């Protein structure tokens, strides 16, 4: 990328002659990287040798490259900083791809350094060669193949800059082995400017004024926030806005914690498994303020059904392409959510007008009526552990202050529904790609970033086995994670869809030949617990969280037949939910897949 990089002498430190591998180390030091998650191999041996000679950051040796990227991803989600992973060429690189795609879908800033075969061997089908730049192109924000050691420092600087700015995302830097041995002058640019990449940060003030006017005139307002609010660190600004206006707020799966779940203005998560009140308020509002959310298929269901009711939509997002993609909006505001919402607060502070109190009162009365349906209620059983019960107790035992990571499936939805997140960056899950196997490496990333925090990994017996090898990493680095396995002996979400839409044909969704999880945990050097009785749930959680320096693997044997409700069937509208007390298959026709 040519020409416009600002490299005036003043922005450079004193120059030195270093190998490419040493340059990479120095770049990571300059970026104040704390952890590099990685796995060595042939193409990165020079890099690992340079890594051996430094002690500014800690290398976390995972047991599979996918977990390295997930852990770096969670470190970023929990801290807001750029996560860093290091993998070798070929299989190391392809193993990292699921992690990269997961981060890409949720806009998580990562720099992934992959080794590559020597420049002269590229294209020769060399041992452990794969076209990493080609393979990752559709699932990165940007990627680079470094062809000259002299470009290494600038490329690394660009990688960190691109990953973290604008709509964040993963950036891959592919480095051939010979480049890591070549010697070049090291100089790390302090700032960088790229003519082809200039993210818009400040929102258009005319549009912001228009938005505030609309909000003040709303009779049935609704605030809907997503992962962008969390990533943009705009939760305090949003709380202030919502409090000034007295409007109801819903969060997406990715946005949980963006608004405190225990606040009375919070109406719960929306979407496919959202609350009755959130989905109905979303459907029936007259002015909708969307902040860092993207109206995806799991959130608004069928867009035509959503748009069949007239409402005015204001949409704040840092990425112009997220606006009017699935749902046409009326007032688009491109900008950093924090700065835009702060500007709205300033306008409101200077404004004496307030929303129509009567209209708002009526709207809240309507919402409270929806709320009174209490669709989150479930029936406790005296013999079988209900999964919802485990999450509720987890919330109580951890005083609502844990980092909760999850895998993907029913347990993920229950964790999202029943753990009340009051703070952003506490709920760590794969929302976009829906990657099974993220839970344990996600917990590793959180625990490393916050060694004294309570970290719970809510998982299923399907998901946990997709990265189970990381129990070994947890032992090596003494990570006292609490694994909350909701073991229903089924791929629960698959089973649920098969029950509703495939006439109970449970095709390949039963998990047979499960290991003895307690013995397995013990063999890795951890503590294992089997919990089979409902009355033991709370006590066992207390016991586990009291073991502050041990990983505890808690195998909760739960109800096999429990389903996640409410549910908006695929392709249906937000207000067409199946509720828990209705026979699901009646309301939902078998039309869905994926």
């Amino acid at each position, binding site marked *: 990328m*040519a020409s416009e990089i600002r490299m005036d002498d003043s922005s450079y430190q004193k120059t030195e002659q270093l190998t490419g591998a040493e340059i990479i180390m120095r770049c990571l030091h300059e970026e104040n990287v704390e952890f590099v998650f990685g796995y060595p191999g042939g193409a990165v041996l020079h890099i690992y040798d340079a890594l051996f000679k430094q002690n500014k950051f800690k290398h976390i040796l995972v047991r599979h490259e996918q977990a390295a990227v997930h852990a770096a991803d969670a470190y970023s989600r929990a801290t807001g900083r750029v996560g860093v992973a290091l993998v070798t060429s070929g299989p190391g690189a392809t193993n990292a791809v699921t992690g990269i795609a997961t981060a890409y879908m949720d806009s998580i800033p990562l720099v992934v350094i992959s080794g590559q075969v020597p420049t002269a061997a590229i294209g020769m089908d060399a041992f452990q060669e794969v076209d990493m730049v*080609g393979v990752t*192109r559709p699932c990165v924000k*940007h990627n680079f193949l470094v062809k000259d050691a002299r470009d290494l420092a600038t490329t690394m600087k660009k990688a960190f800059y691109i990953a973290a700015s604008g709509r964040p995302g993963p950036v891959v830097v592919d480095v051939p082995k010979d480049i890591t041995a070549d010697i070049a002058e090291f100089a790390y640019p302090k700032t960088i400017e790229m003519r082809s*990449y200039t993210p818009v940060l400040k929102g258009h003030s005319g549009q912001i004024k228009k938005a505030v006017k609309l909000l003040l005139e709303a009779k049935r307002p609704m605030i809907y926030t997503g992962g962008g609010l969390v990533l943009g660190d705009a939760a305090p600004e949003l709380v202030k806005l919502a409090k000034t206006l007295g409007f109801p707020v819903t969060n997406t799966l990715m946005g949980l914690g963006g608004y405190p779940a225990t606040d009375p203005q919070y109406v719960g998560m929306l979407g496919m498994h959202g609350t009755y009140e959130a989905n109905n308020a979303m459907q029936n509002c007259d002015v909708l303020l969307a902040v860092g959310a993207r109206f995806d298929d799991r959130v608004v269901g069928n867009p035509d059904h959503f748009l069949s009711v007239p409402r005015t939509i204001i949409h704040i997002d840092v990425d112009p*392409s997220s606006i*009017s993609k699935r749902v046409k909006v009326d007032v688009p505001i491109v900008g950093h959510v924090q700065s835009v919402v702060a500007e709205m607060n300033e306008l409101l502070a200077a404004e004496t007008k307030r929303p129509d109190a009567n209209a708002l009162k009526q709207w809240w009365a309507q919402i409270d009526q929806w709320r009174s349906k209490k669709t989150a209620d479930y029936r406790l059983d005296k013999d079988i552990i209900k999964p919802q019960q485990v999450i509720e107790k987890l919330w109580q035992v951890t005083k609502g202050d844990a980092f909760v990571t999850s895998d993907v499936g029913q347990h993920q939805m229950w964790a999202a529904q029943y753990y009340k997140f009051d703070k952003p960056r506490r709920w760590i899950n794969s929302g976009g790609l829906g990657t099974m196997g993220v839970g344990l490496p996600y917990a590793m990333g959180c625990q490393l970033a916050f060694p004294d925090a309570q970290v719970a990994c809510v998982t299923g017996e399907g998901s946990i086995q997709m990265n189970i090898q990381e129990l070994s990493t947890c032992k090596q680095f003494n990570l006292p994670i609490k694994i909350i396995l909701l073991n229903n002996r089924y791929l629960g979400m698959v089973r649920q869809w098969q029950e509703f839409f495939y006439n109970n044909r449970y095709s390949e969704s039963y998990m047979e030949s499960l290991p003895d999880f307690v013995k397995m945990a013990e063999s890795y050097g951890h503590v294992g617990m089997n919990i089979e009785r409902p009355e033991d749930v709370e006590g066992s959680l207390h016991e586990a969280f009291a073991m502050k320096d041990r990983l505890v693997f808690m195998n909760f044997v739960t109800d096999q037949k429990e389903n996640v409700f409410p549910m908006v069937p695929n392709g249906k509208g937000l207000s067409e939910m199946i509720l828990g007390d209705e026979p699901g298959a009646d309301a939902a026709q078998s039309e869905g897949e994926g």
Partner: protein
Amino acid sequence: MKHIISLLMENEAGALSRVAGLFSARGYNIESLTVAPTEDETLSRMTIVTSGSDDVIEQIIKQLNKLVDVVKVLDLNDGRFIERELMLVKVKATGPLREEMKRISDIFRGRIIDVADGSYTIELTGSGSKLDAFLEALDRTVILETVRTGASGIGRGDRILKV
């Protein structure tokens, strides 16, 4: 509706594949795509002919702008512009066809740039529809081979796409 989109991008290895990949990954139509460096060798200029509803075109422009290597994007259909495409057609030129091919080529202001015993190669420049019209005017059986460059476009007057 058909749109012609012009863009300037960093002249980097792999830049073309980022654009082509974007179109296939998001299911956008691509009728033709041409690319070559500009007078500033750090930049490439690309012309993409695509079609879609206004919403789709809006997304295409936004997604192109999002590519880190893309410097500027212009939908030529937003204003007045000129479209040109080059086509080479090899046609049968035997017996009475020799005269007829020459005549049709002249009507379309084509140039015969290669003459062989049984064939002519005609060079023709114009908008895509003019080239289509030329092919329509020929009997299918006389066409031996065609090659088209895909459209290039430029704004009229002071509509300038430059960094």
